[in-house]
């Protein structure tokens, strides 16, 4: 780890957002780098000072009253049955319908953005995890082309039993497996290789939105394929050409279908 990386990651360390492996990396760097050690100490001191200070404050009481008054009333007693549908307008405190409509549209945009964001964030993390894995010594925790060694290795480490499929005969060499973290969750990474290109296949219970069909994207020059199958979420990432990654995804999927694979 270099100082530039460390400068970003010490904050994640302070905030408890680093997984154990990266926390160790940062701590190892800090132990040998006086400048980064000072930074860590001083940012921690600042964070502590901020935690002690009251930076949030309380919302003014009259604001709470105003908002409560603007929201529909919650009757203390059981409400009387109404024959007519309650008028929507009355609940909006007589707001113009146009305003209500445009606000609803705006709010639905927010929700859509949230959903897409989640997918984009996961895709981003998957690619980051792939890049991290390419650093020396990070690629594999269990290094063997034997699927019957890789698969049981994941037992107890992740909450899924990831299918480990040997595609060596079909041009994708099984290299091994690794425990990785996406979105703070432990996931299984099965590592394949075609020629000099590494492919990480991340398998988890549920990372992004459900994709029955394969969703493709390109991030920082890496191609990703995401699909959902047999209740599992699959993300394949590689610098392999798009058509070859498609082929990989198809072969994994086909092997999954050909009953009770490994």
């Amino acid at each position: 780890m270099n100082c530039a990386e460390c400068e970003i990651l010490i904050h994640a360390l302070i905030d408890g957002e680093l997984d154990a492996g990266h926390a160790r990396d940062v701590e190892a760097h800090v132990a040998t780098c006086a400048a980064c050690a000072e930074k860590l100490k001083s940012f921690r001191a600042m964070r502590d000072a901020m935690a002690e200070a009251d930076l949030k404050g309380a919302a003014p009481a009259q604001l709470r009253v105003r908002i409560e008054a603007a929201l529909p009333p919650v009757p203390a007693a059981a409400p009387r049955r109404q024959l007519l549908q309650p008028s929507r307008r009355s609940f909006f405190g007589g707001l113009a319908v146009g305003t209500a409509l445009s606000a609803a549209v705006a709010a639905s945009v927010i929700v859509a953005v949230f959903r897409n964001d989640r997918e984009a964030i996961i895709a981003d993390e998957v690619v980051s995890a792939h890049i991290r894995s390419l650093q020396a010594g990070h690629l594999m925790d269990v290094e063997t082309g034997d699927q019957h060694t890789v698969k049981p290795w994941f037992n107890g480490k992740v909450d899924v039993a990831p299918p480990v499929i040997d595609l060596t005969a079909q041009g994708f060499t099984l290299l091994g497996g690794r425990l990785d973290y996406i979105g703070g969750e432990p996931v299984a990474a099965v590592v394949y290789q075609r020629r000099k290109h590494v492919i990480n296949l991340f398998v988890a219970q549920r990372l992004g939105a459900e994709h029955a069909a394969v969703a493709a994207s390109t991030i920082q020059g890496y191609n990703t394929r995401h699909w959902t199958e047999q209740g599992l979420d699959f993300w394949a990432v590689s610098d392999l050409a798009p058509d070859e990654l498609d082929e990989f995804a198809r072969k994994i999927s086909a092997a999954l279908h050909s009953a009770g694979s490994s």
Partner: protein
Amino acid sequence: MTGDGNAEPDRARRFRDAALPYLDDVFALARYLMRDAADAEDAVQECYLRAWRHFDSYRGPAMKPWLLAILRNVCNAEFARRGRQETVADCAETEQAAEQGPMWQEAPASPEAVLLRRHDDDTIRRLIAALPQPFRETIVLREVNDLSYQEIAAVAGVPVGTVMSRLARARAMLRSAWNAAEGPTSGATP
């Protein structure tokens, strides 16, 4: 069918129970974004009305980041309406300017420089409020609203990596301002 008459009041009750506990959080973010108490109150009220109108289709994420995302939208809309340059989202320039700023060329820290000046709460709030966007919102979402990086990313609509780099810059800027600000010192460098 018997339950129909209760549907609306039930929904209203559920909304109050779910959303009102975060009023302090929403108001705090509004204060830091709008930098004006009256504007913040208006933004918070608009935020809660929008949230209520859309409560039907709310399926998550967690209520707090959902409300804060709506609030951020309200504030942006208000800035856009005023035609101000400073929108929460429009950050390319500030970010670039901040990158060229002096904070990455800090002098190597001496042991004394590690010691922070002590500031009262008001001063710390003022220092945070003085940060440029989008660093201000990032550090407020983290330190004041106590959101995870994932949640901040969702609220601000950027990848987690961006949250991390913004937070690093926000803290570097804040630390410079912090040590430059007047206040009782504990072991300042000569």
